[in-house]
């Protein structure tokens, strides 16, 4: 009925005693998320918005059966925290932190594979299954429950898209932020594979951008998927060789161009919206065809 997180998900907040951690914990709880525990080294024994704080993830898992973790942990400590979560058996680790060193991300991805854990991010707004569970800092008011899955490399742009979908009466099963970094734990393909298997999701919206080849790989995957997809891509007018905000949003050595991605999606029969506000119509059309 959703991917990654739902009403049964037991969320652990790492870095819960920080400003951001505490604030978004209250927001997540207000949304109905089951935040079962927090971890902040040196702060064990405290409570944050009624959530008990532990010294280590293993205690939080042991005492509360937490199975998903969300990290509000500064970049220099994020690798350690995410490794701790995976070592303790957490299955989904949502890494919001920006500016994690590239080589740390390589190690995180390698360890996630070894542990068969899913890392969402780094540098993501998180994941939300509207009406069920919010594990992130997205403005939840823009999302409505419904049949459209969203996977996005960028935060605010995907909020725009989600808001236009909701306004058009097209709610979402799950919206997941893949993260703006060069190396992220979950790719479009990984997200599509989950949406493909989710009975509640009827169509998928991909919010991509220039840089890398994640969209091209997604297009390949779409050829074998029997649910329609609509893409919107940012960066059509971006100059090559410049990092456009996201570490991963750069056209380098002729790779990662807007044109390459559009061409790949079109070849896969996936509609590409010219403007963000065109997405709902394209989704509605795609759903009508089925």
């Amino acid at each position, binding site marked *: 009925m959703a991917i990654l997180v739902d009403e049964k998900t037991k969320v652990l907040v790492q870095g819960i005693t920080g400003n951001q951690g505490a604030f978004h914990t209250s927001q997540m709880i207000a949304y109905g998320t089951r935040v079962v525990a927090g971890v902040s080294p040196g702060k064990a024994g405290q409570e944050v918005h009624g959530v008990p704080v532990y010294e280590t993830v293993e205690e939080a898992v042991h005492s509360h059966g937490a199975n998903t973790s969300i990290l509000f942990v500064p970049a220099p400590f994020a690798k350690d925290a995410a490794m701790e979560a995976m070592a303790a058996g957490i299955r989904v680790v949502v890494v919001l932190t920006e500016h994690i060193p590239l080589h740390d991300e390589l190690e995180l991805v390698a360890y996630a594979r070894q542990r068969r854990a899913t890392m969402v991010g780094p540098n993501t707004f998180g994941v939300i299954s509207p009406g069920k569970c919010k594990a992130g800092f997205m403005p939840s008011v823009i999302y409505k429950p419904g049949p459209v899955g969203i996977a996005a490399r960028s935060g*605010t742009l995907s909020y725009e898209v989600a808001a236009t979908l909701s306004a058009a009466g097209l709610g979402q099963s799950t919206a997941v932020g893949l993260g703006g970094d060069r190396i992220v734990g979950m790719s479009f393909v990984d997200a599509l594979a989950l949406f493909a298997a989710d009975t509640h999701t009827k169509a998928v919206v991909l919010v991509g951008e220039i840089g890398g080849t994640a969209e091209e790989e997604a297009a390949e995957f779409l050829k074998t998927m029997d649910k329609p997809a609509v893409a919107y891509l940012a960066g059509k*007018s971006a100059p090559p060789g410049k990092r456009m*905000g996201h570490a991963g949003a750069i056209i380098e050595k002729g790779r990662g161009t807007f044109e390459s991605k559009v061409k790949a999606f079109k070849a896969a029969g996936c509609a590409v919206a010219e403007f963000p506000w065109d997405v709902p119509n394209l989704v509605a059309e795609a759903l009508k065809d089925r």
Partner: protein
Amino acid sequence: MKLYEYLAKEVMGKHGVPIPRGRVAASPEEAEKIAAELGEVAIKVQVLAGGRGKAGGIAFAATPQEARDHAARLLGIQIRGLQVDRVLVEEKLKIDRELYLGLTVDTSARVPLVMASTEGGVNIEEVPEKYIIKQHLDVHMGLYPFHGRQLARRLGLTGSLARQFADTAVRLYQVFREYDAELVEVNPLVVSGDRLVAADGRLNIDDDALYRHPQVPRTHEGTELELRVKELGLAFVQLDGDIAVMANGAGITMAVLDILASYGGKAANFLDAGGGAAIEPTARAIEVLLATNPRAILVNIFGGITRCDDVARALIQVKNTRGIPVPLVIRLVGTNEEAALSILRESGLTAFRSMRDAAAEVVRISHGPGGEL
């Protein structure tokens, strides 16, 4: 962050990669002195740009006097828009073959990647794929001598050269890991008689990991304005249009630029004010935009963590303190949107709720004669 060639080579040399004898010089006299020690030398401008050879940034000297003359000529000129204030003076190598060896990250497979080619000496992007050998690596295992032997074998190297190549690959990987490199590259890796030498070297360090490398000298790339904004901690790219743009989020900022372009406008910059920006940094960001002398400014905010009222207050602050001498088009939706609108109204400003309308308006203004809102 890119390192200058001489620094990249210094690091490689420390890790056992064979590099030419030589030193960096900041004056013709120094260049002369180094040449006197080394004999025939190459003199290479030290700028953070490729293609120096084609741009006339490399010279050869048979005598110390010649080295001095070349250095005198090169020091102070501009190469690809960059001022030359240092040259690297090193032994001139007898070049039998030019290979390529590089380490980077495969963002698709999400593992380290080693690349090698027999077609060194030119930009690796210009080498046909079939001449490039690529090998994924396990980040926890690293690059073993056997990986190096496999690469050497596929390059057709044998004997001592194969051994040297394998050894160089192992050492270059150590540099890659220890220096948090995005890219380590030896191009060309020169076959000079019976030895391999790194004739040129690149080492780009991940900006996000620089805090772990305080000993590495900092270099600065970009326009003066870009460097100033970088210090504010904002993502900023200078472009050549006339509509200054600020939005919150990298993706949406790119989208705004695309929409402007579709509507026939030209953006003056990319500026991601980030999520959850406070009043003060937002105000400073607006000031940066004004520094590009745009014909109009477009502020596009989808409030999530970012509170629309904070953005409105920042705009008012700049308007009241330094003034905003060009038309300001605002689009605000999301968190605390109503409060924002009322703050703007008090100061005589209005805002759009639709990105489409805001973009159309600012493009219209940029095409017209301009004027206060």
